[in-house]
């Protein structure tokens, strides 16, 4: 499945944001595991940087899809 491959390599904004939110929640739950906390912190900083980058650099892209005329779609 080529589309799946592209999905894993592609940066998914929504998933990243959801993950960031869950890390914020993890910290707010008063968890005391330092090792895990440091890992999560690192991940959070990475995610937030990527999200920021995405917002600052990317443009919205519009592609017009050609309709399939001679094919019945069900």
């Amino acid at each position, binding site marked *: 499945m080529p*589309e799946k491959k592209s999905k894993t390599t*592609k940066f*998914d*904004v*929504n998933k990243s*944001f*959801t993950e*960031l*939110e869950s*890390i*914020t929640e993890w*910290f*707010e739950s008063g968890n*005391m595991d*330092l090792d895990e*906390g*440091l890992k*999560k*912190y690192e991940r*959070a*900083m990475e995610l*937030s940087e990527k*999200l*920021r980058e*995405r*917002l*600052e*650099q*990317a*443009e*919205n*892209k*519009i*592609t*017009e*899809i050609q*309709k*399939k005329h001679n094919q019945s*779609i*069900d």
Partner: protein
Amino acid sequence: MNSVANAKNVAKNKVVSRSLIKDLFYFNNFNIYFLGISILATFHLYSIDMTIFTVSDFLAHINDTLSRAWNVSELCVEGEVSDFRVSQGQWVNFSLKDDNGLVPIFMTVWNLRVPIEDGMRVQVYGMPRIYPKFGKFSLSAERVELVGEGALKKALAALKLKLEKEGLFDPARKRQLVTIPNRIALIASRESAAYGDFVRIINERWRGLEIDLYHVKVQGAGAAEDIVKAIKQANQNHKDYDALVLTRGGGSLEELMSFNDEQVVRAIFASKIPTLVGIGHERDISLAEEAADVRGSTPTDCARRLVPDRQDFLRNLSYQSSAIEKNINNLIESWQRSLGQAIQAPSNWLAQQKQFLLHSTSKLDANMAQWFKALHEKHRSLVRLLASLDPKGVLARGYTMLCDARGRALTSISSLAIGSTVTAVMRDGEGDLLVKQIRTDDLSEQQKLL
């Protein structure tokens, strides 16, 4: 039949069929009408260029002639619906009439895209045809459209009720859109203001969204089919899309009818991609919007609902980052505290032990001192006692002690022997005495000391 004669026949039949059609609208009873045709045919038997048809050929000829009379796209008959009925769930029959005439209409349920009932005014598009088996004339309809706002509204209300009963607008079935879409399918007309507005607001608010535009007709004949096709096509790649947006600007009820089309509404309902539908308009909500997961009031509103505002998002992002940073710092600090406490604990214990020891020692010291004092006291009194027992003290008081030659104190008379020498110890010296006589207390004869 040679080709010239054939052409002639066609020409002649065309004339006949024209008057035939004309007559059709004046006669309700087609059997009478066909009787007229046959009389005409009999009359022609005796004239030149006579053609004798079999019934089937004749009907085929008439149908052929009828089909040549108009272009499919040209013919539309407007009238009032009566005697509407559906048979076997797939065939629709009704009559279209006006004050002076009546045309039977035949069509499939699939082609009937608007709910109609007796008394409605409709326009019927199709071709006239005689059904050979029964010789029954009808207008075979491809499409029926409602005439007038009243009829449209009535039909719309009926369709809405029907779809509502089926659960197409059920709020419990509505899905949420993702917070931030990566890629969406946009179904709109690329020339429309709605499209322009939508894209403008997206560009104002967000970056990095991939929009696949499925350009469609949004009004007029074929618009509904176009939209259904686009929805289905987008759904073939439903995994690629986070949302399906269908939007157009406002318009009259008639212009917006493709958004009330049953097939469009069903396609939206069936979409695997969460749907966002927004039609700019003033009054009623279209059925397409009712069936959508999320409804935008206008194309602009759709864009706002689809993506967050960049500034808000960045603020939120930095809030979250700093909250996490603060949290990790707190966590580290608290661990440092715990660690400090952990290190502190043994030394605290040691100090405590020292303190205890000190306390114990000082108590011991005090006890010892006291004990010593007591001992000392006892010693002193013993010394006093001993002093009082010192024989020298006795000698001082004038007593004399007798000792033997080895210096042992003699306490009994029995240790004396006549003629032996004893030493008398006195306060200030001693002298040797010779025992001359002994007297024992219980004897009559006692020696005397010299």
